[in-house]
């Protein structure tokens, strides 16, 4: 067992502990903070798995932007979760059954890191070999060339999705002032918040 494997197991254990903590904790503020920690650990693990591009996107998004957005939502709503009256038995059964089915499915998968796995052999020549030729050696980062060139249509679609989501948030949340003036007690509200 080498050093990296040890780090691997350590990060995975921390990830599992954080996920369980999120499930158990009642205070929403704490849950949001744990989610941030979870994202950051996920980013650390992605770095171990040789995907630096994804790792620092996840670090900036998960630990930065989405945590801030969730905290902003908490400030606009409430910080405590009401104790649930639902019994946890049925969800637990569903989760255990789904999980065991998925684990049964993994038994047919090649082990992690197997160079002969279909993921690594089905593209022939692989993007790595193709990129070296097509990009005339100017683009050493294959992730960028696949993202912007080989899968350019896909990325255009993703950018449009982000664009649409941004517009939708704008439509839902913009200009709270205008709505409030329609309410009869707008003057009091402005006084108490201003």
């Amino acid at each position, binding site marked *: 067992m080498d050093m990296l494997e040890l780090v691997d197991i350590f990060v*995975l254990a921390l*990830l599992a502990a954080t*996920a369980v903590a*999120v*499930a158990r904790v009642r205070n929403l503020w704490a849950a949001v903070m744990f*989610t941030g920690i*979870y*994202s950051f650990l*996920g980013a650390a*693990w992605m770095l171990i*798995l*040789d*995907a630096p*591009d*994804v790792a620092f*996107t*996840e670090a900036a*998004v*998960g630990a930065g*932007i*989405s945590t801030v*957005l969730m905290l*902003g*939502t908490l400030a606009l709503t409430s910080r405590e*979760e009401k104790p*649930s009256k*639902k019994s*946890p038995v049925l*969800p*637990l059964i*569903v*989760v255990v059954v789904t*999980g065991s089915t*998925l*684990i049964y499915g*993994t038994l047919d*998968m090649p*082990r*992690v*890191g*197997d160079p002969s796995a279909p*993921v*690594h052999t089905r*593209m022939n020549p*692989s993007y*790595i070999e193709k*990129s070296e030729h097509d990009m005339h050696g100017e683009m*050493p*980062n*294959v*992730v960028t060339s*696949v*993202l912007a060139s080989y899968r350019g249509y896909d*990325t255009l679609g*993703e950018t449009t999705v982000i664009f649409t*989501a*941004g517009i939708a*948030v704008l439509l*839902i*949340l913009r200009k709270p002032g205008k709505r409030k003036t329609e309410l009869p007690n707008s003057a009091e509200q402005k006084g108490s918040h201003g």
Partner: protein
Amino acid sequence: MDINSLAGLFNYWIVIVLMMTGFYIVIARGNLIKTVIGLNIFQISVFLLYITMGRVDQGTAPIIQEAAQADQAYSNPLSSVLILTAIVVGVATTALALALIVRIREDYGSIEEDEILILDRES
């Protein structure tokens, strides 16, 4: 199925356990923000599953180095690309969900699923 090939699947199993934790939060909790948090955890776990699949033994990040040997193995760039865009799209859609939650709270005065359902039936 010997012990070595089972140990090679260990990472997948942990990722599945993480996914199921997120799934449990989504279906067991009535609080809308908690549900979004659960979806987030589920989502990150799926990202980890993809990245795990893209990894290769003795590999390195998919950035071609001039100095490397000819047979240098690189991890699969395709899984990185897919997840890279998925992360940013994910945060945009999460923001949309949170915006809807803020509006629900403003109109219903609650972010608990059961209370909202009762208010809906009364009206």
